[in-house]
């Protein structure tokens, strides 16, 4: 399915493509249905419908100078560009743009690891570098550093960070945008800007101090459309000496409240790596009576859930703890965590898990000796990229809604009830029930997950998923829970929920957009930010 850029005819499009070929070479510009097929969002719930967004062409520069030239050409032709890094943002739109007819600015060829500094614990990379690439670079050089990787290793550290993606190690590294330090950006007029200490010629601290002097605009480029990020620095964790795990269970439903408070303390004190909450009762969902109780309208009572747990002699909640650091320190932290929680919650129990010196062996990475059921994916927990997560993907992919929930047990219970009731009208697996646990990914907050699958050959199912996504976004927002990241087809819906003071945040962004990019050259609509040209 071909599309033309907005306000452009075929002849103008041909002239545009000619200029783009002049800038990057004829081998690196594509158009037409066949070559553009891989630029569609293959996880789209609006696949093959009028709502699907189609790019008109793709252009792949090999360096920042070519990016700048492409932006200048696009500006002359008033053509929207949609930058992608490795293009693997599946569940959130993949490589497809917000605006039909956009030209995808495919940065995959810019794949250099520019620096990894082992003594000062940082890296500087280009957008086309994947986590696989960066991991190989670090390991081949024997550098004693640990990455923090998201689920699929083919993603880009820059792309993932700009989407505010997450990983699975220590708290301040899991927030990938938060762990960045310094960026280079091509602005909508083609100028090249560096943030933080990168703005000071001769500074050797670009990846050590992110702010420089004055306002720091770096945040504008995450989920935004104010420029094309061409370099980005990241802080890295020195390879810890030792890895230790342990499981703590608590018997009663309301024990989750205290358990969360303890985990908050441990995490905010820097004592633990990623945490996985779980309900051992999840194994009971195969029993229709239990499933009916857990998904009951308005939620079951605490007594009902405690009775159900006691009947099968299972604890209500569990938490996987992980420790990274010197061997003696990880042991002391595990002992401390056990004492702290077991002395405060009657009936709490602790089981020591695998522990070993890093780097892990192949067998340790395979995670086959843990003495308890664990939701931890070992490779990700140790910063080793893989595609192991794809075992959970079904049908033709899925979309994702991950509302931000307070790190508080009562809030978790409320979210279980409200979101569980909201999804009842849809014929979908119960993403929310009385046993749904929070995800502790971002450094200081919880999220929950709603990720229904899509089916290319079942438009009715997809339409139902599409309605469900919009409803969940709206219902969550009524309770103060906002999505953290969205596909282009949902970005306006999500942006609209961040509405304090008559949407002043969005209006402020629009003012900025009008000032630096009134024609919408860089990803108009991304983040719900539309320039004047497209608002009318």
């Amino acid at each position, binding site marked *: 399915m071909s599309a033309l850029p907005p306000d452009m005819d075929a002849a103008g499009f041909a002239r545009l493509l000619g200029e783009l070929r002049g800038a990057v070479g004829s081998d*690196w510009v*594509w158009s037409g249905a*066949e*070559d553009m*097929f*891989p*630029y*569609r969002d*293959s*996880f789209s719930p609006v696949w093959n419908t009028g709502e699907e967004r189609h790019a008109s062409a*793709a252009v*792949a520069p090999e360096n920042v100078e070519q990016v700048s030239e492409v932006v200048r050409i696009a500006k002359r032709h008033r053509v929207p560009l949609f930058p992608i890094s*490795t*293009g*693997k943002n*599946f569940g959130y739109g*993949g*490589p497809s743009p917000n605006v039909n007819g956009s030209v995808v600015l*495919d940065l*995959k*060829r810019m794949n250099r690891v520019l620096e990894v500094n082992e003594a000062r614990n940082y890296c500087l990379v280009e957008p*086309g570098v994947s986590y*696989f690439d960066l*991991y*190989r670079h670090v*390991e*081949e050089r*024997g550098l004693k550093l640990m990455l923090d990787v998201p689920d699929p*290793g*083919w993603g880009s550290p820059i792309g993932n960070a700009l989407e505010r993606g997450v990983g699975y190690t220590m708290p301040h590294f899991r927030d990938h945008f938060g762990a960045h330090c310094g960026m280079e950006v091509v602005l909508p007029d083609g100028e090249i800007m560096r943030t933080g200490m990168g703005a000071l010629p001769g500074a050797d601290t670009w990846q050590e101090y992110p702010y420089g002097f004055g306002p720091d605009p770096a945040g504008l480029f995450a989920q935004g459309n104010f420029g094309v990020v061409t370099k980005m620095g990241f802080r890295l964790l020195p390879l810890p000496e030792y890895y230790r795990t342990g499981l703590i269970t608590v018997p009663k439903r309301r024990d989750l409240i205290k358990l969360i408070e303890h985990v908050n303390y441990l995490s905010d004190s820097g004592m633990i790596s990623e945490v996985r909450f779980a309900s051992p009762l999840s194994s009971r969902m195969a029993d229709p009576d239990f499933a009916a109780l857990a998904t009951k309208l308005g939620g079951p009572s605490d007594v009902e859930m405690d009775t159900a747990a006691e009947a099968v002699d299972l604890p209500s909640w569990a938490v996987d703890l992980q420790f990274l650091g010197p061997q003696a320190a990880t042991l002391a932290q595990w002992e401390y965590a056990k004492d702290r929680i077991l002395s405060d919650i009657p009936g709490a129990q602790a089981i020591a898990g695998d522990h070993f010196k890093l*780097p*892990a*062996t*192949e067998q340790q*990475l395979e995670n086959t000796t843990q003495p308890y059921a664990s939701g931890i994916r070992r*490779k990700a927990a140790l910063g*080793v*990229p*893989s*595609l*192991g997560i*794809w*075992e959970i*993907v*079904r*049908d*033709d*992919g899925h979309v994702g809604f991950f509302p931000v929930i307070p790190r508080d047990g009562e809030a978790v219970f409320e979210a279980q009830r409200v979101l569980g009731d909201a999804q009842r009208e849809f014929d979908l697996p119960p993403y929310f029930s009385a046993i749904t646990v929070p995800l502790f990914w971002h450094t200081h907050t919880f999220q929950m997950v709603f990720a229904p699958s899509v089916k290319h050959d079942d438009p009715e199912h997809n339409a139902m998923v599409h309605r469900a996504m919009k409803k969940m976004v709206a219902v969550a927002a009524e309770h103060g829970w906002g999505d953290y990241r969205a596909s282009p087809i949902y970005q306006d819906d999500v942006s609209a929920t961040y509405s304090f003071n008559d949407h002043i945040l969005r209006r402020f962004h629009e003012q900025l957009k009008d000032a630096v990019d009134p024609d919408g050259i860089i990803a108009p609509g991304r983040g719900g930010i539309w320039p004047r040209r497209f608002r009318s």
Partner: protein
Amino acid sequence: MRLLLASAALVALGCGAVAAQQVARTGPGAEELQAGKRVYAHWCAPCHADVPSLAGTMSLAVKYEGSDIPAALEDRTDLPAPVISVFVRNGVAWMPPFRKTEISDADLAQLNAYLTAPLEDRGAHVPLLAEEMVRMQEGGE
């Protein structure tokens, strides 16, 4: 339609041409296949290597259960180059299509050469990246 064509091509090929996967998969393999093997290792193996828990391998194991078609792509001898190309450029189910900035036409030709070569010429299975790096570190210590 693209997927239907690919499926039809597989059906047309039948299921009989795969018994040779028992050939010993050791050694480096033919020199002229190394480039294609690297493409396979980087782009395909993370999901399709000979590891049952990987999503691609698991999915194909289910698809071909009861047949003699192996689940690991690297062991397949029934995939002609045009079929491989269709899957690479169009994806299937939740496997997304791959762009030319990821797997260029030249890369794809090398990949096709590797995956259509006789098994004895392909040499040992490629390791997963993590395994390769761990073995390298352990070998260096």
